[in-house]
């Protein structure tokens, strides 16, 4: 079903974005709608494939509702009310986003992604002392959610509370459920996750995986353990899975 048909067939919410009349299916999250409209909104913890979380606080917008204006993150704001107006580019929004970005930058000075985004917002340098030892991880939780919701093996988790919060495998030991798929590595917005491949062995989160060669091109392409897991989960003959994505597309 195309989106237009979907809108027509469903409960449609009519609202405004920066003065323009728009419509969206009831319950859709605001951020993907705004991005679809081509509006530029900074974000680090959002991914279409997983549930919204609201951790990075960058996708702030102003929502005017019954004459009152409130700041909210658009990623976890479900469009459900007629007549609201969304403002994405006000001075207040920009000021707050810059402040959030300054917090990110000071926490993760090692991240080139963060620095680029911050500079683009016009920040020259954070007004806070720069942290050391946080690496590039901004605790957005994309890896945790991807592992839970897309891969379904729950190998990653948050630990610690508040400023002591960290992401990793339970007890920082090699996870018994990790299949080495690398989805966390590919989806991390700041390239904070390390994955090494050498001589047919992949290493991620302290666990080593023997790689399988593609039965067509002969290149290493996926951990054997991952293919066995997929074969079992989807009841597919493992032979059919031993073809890499490149050869599959040919």
């Amino acid at each position, binding site marked *: 079903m195309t989106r237009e048909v979907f809108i027509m067939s469903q409960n449609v919410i009519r609202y405004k974005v920066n003065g323009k009349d728009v419509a969206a299916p009831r319950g859709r999250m605001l951020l993907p709608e705004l991005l679809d409209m081509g509006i530029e909104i900074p974000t680090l913890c959002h991914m279409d494939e997983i549930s*919204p*979380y*609201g*951790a*990075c*606080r960058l996708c*702030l917008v102003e929502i005017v509702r019954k004459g009152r204006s409130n*700041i*909210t*993150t658009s990623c*976890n*704001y*479900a469009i*459900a009310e007629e007549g609201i107006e969304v403002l994405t580019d006000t001075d207040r929004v920009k*000021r*707050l986003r810059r*402040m*959030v970005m300054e*917090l*990110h930058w*000071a*926490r993760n000075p090692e991240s080139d992604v963060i620095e680029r985004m911050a500079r683009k917002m016009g920040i020259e340098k954070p*007004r*806070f*002392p720069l942290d050391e030892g946080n690496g590039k991880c*901004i*605790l957005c939780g994309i890896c945790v959610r991807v592992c839970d919701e897309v891969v379904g093996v729950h190998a990653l988790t*948050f630990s*610690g*509370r*508040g*400023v*002591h*919060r960290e992401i990793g495998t339970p007890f920082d030991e090699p996870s018994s459920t990790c299949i080495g798929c690398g989805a966390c590595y590919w989806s991390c917005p700041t390239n904070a996750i390390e994955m090494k491949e050498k001589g047919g062995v992949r290493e991620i989160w302290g666990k080593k995986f023997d790689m399988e060669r593609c039965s067509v091109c002969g290149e290493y392409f996926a951990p054997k353990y991952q293919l066995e897991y997929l074969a079992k989960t989807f009841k597919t003959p493992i032979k059919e899975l031993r073809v890499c994505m490149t050869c599959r597309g040919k």
Partner: protein
Amino acid sequence: MEIRPTGCRGLCELGPLMSIHPKGIFYVGLKPEDMPEVVESIMNNGEAVERLLYKDPITGESELTEEDVPFYKKQVRLLLAQNGHINPESLDDYLAIGGYEALAKALSDMQPEQIIEEIKSSGLRGRGGGGFPTGRKWESCRRAGGDVHYIICNGDEGDPGAYMDRSILEGNPHSVIEGMVIGAKAIGGNPKGYVYVRNEYPLAVNNLNLAINVARRAGLLGKDILGSGLDFDIEIRRGGGAFVCGESTALMASLEGKVGEPRAKHIHTVESGLYDQPTNLNNVETWANVPLIISKGAGWFSKIGTKSSKGTKVFSLVGKINNTGLVEVPMGITLREIVYDIGGGIRGGKKFKGVQTGGPSGGVLTEEHLDLPVDFESLDEVGSMMGSGGMIVMDEDTCMVDVAKYFIHFLEEESCGKCTTCRDGMRRLGQVLDRITDGKGRDGDIELIEDLCEVIGEASLCALAGTAPNPVKTTLKYFRDEYEAHIYKKKCPAKVCKGLITFRIDKRKCTGCHVCYVNCPVNCISGKKKEAHVIDSSKCIRCGVCLESCKFDAVRVK
């Protein structure tokens, strides 16, 4: 003679307390060795033991009964009064004071809509901090679909120095259970109850557990309650003591066995809360008000209080005040009446400086606010809040920057860490305040604090962070000169911040008694006996021991 152990009676400062009935003789500050005399006086003539009665700290006059004690005079103790009359472990005691009559009335004579209407017109608002109208919450939950309607009591009282809910759960657990069963009847839709209570409250957990079991056996919980056809039971869930779990969505996550972290509340919990089912959560004190409203009527209840805030509110009154304790006052009473009439004024005859209302994320109010009526709106307007009812009184020796720093560090520790603005914002705010109180504050720090307060308050996920900057915002608003003195003059006007004070000995007053010399933990005081002593500032850690130990008032702080 019957001896009845009761729950907390509020006047912590003078405990342990005892009253002897029928005369109502009220004894304070009892010790085990006082007991023979007390028993003897009862057996002999029933006359009071004069020396154990309450004495007015100024006039020295003694008061015979609880009602005569000034601490209680201005209070309206709808919820707390029964704490002093009943044994919390006894259902009979609760029944004897009219307990479960409201439930019987609600189950046999009232329709759910009628109950909701009664609560709505009573004007009862949530006592946990939000102040949302209770009746409207119940109504929305009743209207929501779903297989189960969860009825939750929030007993995760995490504010430092606050113990209102604890005293109700410990002293009168049946009042909470009764309120919840009435709520279950009103909300309907296959209701199921939970009480989420801190594990650090073992007596509350114990008394509530006993009460639930007794109520179950008496047919007041479980299947077909009092033959009305209502099925409803309550389970206790113990929280691990995370402050954030007092936030409703974090509490529900914790109840589900997940990490206690809040989620966005654009979809209200009355529609989708615990296990995605409609969930009605109220605070302990809110639930305890329900039976009173049902038995005495909304009209009676709404006569107490102000236009928008009805009934009473329990505060835990602590800090630099003469009578610390739990007080229950009608909404609309002034802060002055609470601090001076009930609290007995500032300890040691010092000057009042400020009072923080609403727990760690409340604001600090000043002298100019003392005549402010205490209700939801008035407190909000001046930058503080009702919160769950913490009230910390500060005297002239309190440094407001130091106070703000204390609360910010508390909240920083209690941040769940999910969202950046709270986790990192609070940490940065703490860093800036540390710097200022260490004497390393610099130009631009006040603006930085203001920027941080804005982003934490406006751009965070949950209400905890939304209110977290209040202590800084209000102290900056009302005591900006103190911040400026710290930053620009490198002075702490209240002489509290160690990085900004020096100790020295006044040569004219020092007798060379050597006491400070002996007590100084870092041996930075030198001098011969009977000669004036000297403090070596470079070694001094500013602990203040010399100041406290000097009998000749010779130590100066600058």
